[in-house]
């Protein structure tokens, strides 16, 4: 493989990362080729020693995805981290995907339930006094407040569980990075 082929495959594999990250990474590998050349190695030798550019790109993307997830906890960085780890091929998709789907489905359901409970509680709290007799106003308002508090608690627990699940997956994926397979086996 020539230097140009290696670099264009690497860049193709990195597509989707922020432009500055791609430039940074490409600079690292360009510098590697320069050093190799200065040491009297041919382009093909250096490219072979570097390894498969597509696999390196997957590892670099996974690293970037995990970093984004560690810096900001948001649904989109969570999804990016999960897909980056899955893209490594470090996790057996066929076994894990159904479990993952079921788990995230369940978490999503409970979360929606909590949201509905919260809304229902708000309706009871605000609207209740207009529909019940004077003696029950306090009871209905307290019930609404209780429902809202309970739902908020459930929602918070679900959020924590989701974060823990993504972290566990990321940890597992990192543990299984195929960082070391030499170029020839790739």
């Amino acid at each position, binding site marked *: 493989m020539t230097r140009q082929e290696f670099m264009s495959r690497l860049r193709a594999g990195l597509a989707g990362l922020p432009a500055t990250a791609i430039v940074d990474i490409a600079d690292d590998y360009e510098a*590697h080729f320069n050093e190799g050349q200065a040491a009297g190695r041919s382009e093909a030798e250096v490219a072979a020693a570097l390894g498969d550019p597509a696999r*390196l790109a997957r590892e670099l993307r996974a*690293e970037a995805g995990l970093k984004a997830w*560690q810096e900001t906890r948001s649904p989109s960085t969570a999804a990016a981290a999960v897909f980056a780890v899955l893209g490594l091929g470090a996790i057996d998709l066929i076994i894990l995907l159904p479990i993952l789907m079921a788990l995230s489905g369940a978490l999503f359901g409970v979360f929606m339930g909590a949201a509905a409970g919260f809304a229902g509680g708000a309706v009871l709290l605000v609207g209740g006094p207009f529909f019940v007799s004077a003696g029950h106003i306090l009871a209905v308002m307290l019930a609404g407040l209780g429902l809202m508090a309970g739902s908020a608690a459930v929602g918070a627990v679900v959020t924590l569980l989701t974060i823990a699940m993504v972290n566990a997956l990321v940890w597992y994926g990192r543990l299984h990075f195929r*960082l070391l397979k*030499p170029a020839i086996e790739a």
Partner: protein
Amino acid sequence: VIDNLHAERTGVNETIQVQLKKGVLELCVLALLSSADGYAYDIASRLAKGVDMGEGTIYPLMRRMQADGLVETYLQESPAGPPRKYYRLTAAGRASFTAQKAEWSAFVSAVNAILGEAQ
């Protein structure tokens, strides 16, 4: 059947080797950088000789270690060509090296003790 068994065993051996090397790669980089700052090409070629790894894997590893705050970079003029990006250990990197080195030594001596008994 024997062929299958054989293939399975080579697979397992390969996995064990990969896992072993993976575990010590970061430790090796920490060790190299603890004696002197270095640039990636140099680190990669020294590791490639020593532990038979693809040279390209140094870059994901260095980015990870940088993200984890174990190393930091600075530019330094090189005798030939453009300035080189050098890596040096941070305080956290030095602490991690000390801890991992102790863990590794304990592990190796435990394994050696068991291997010695078996002879």
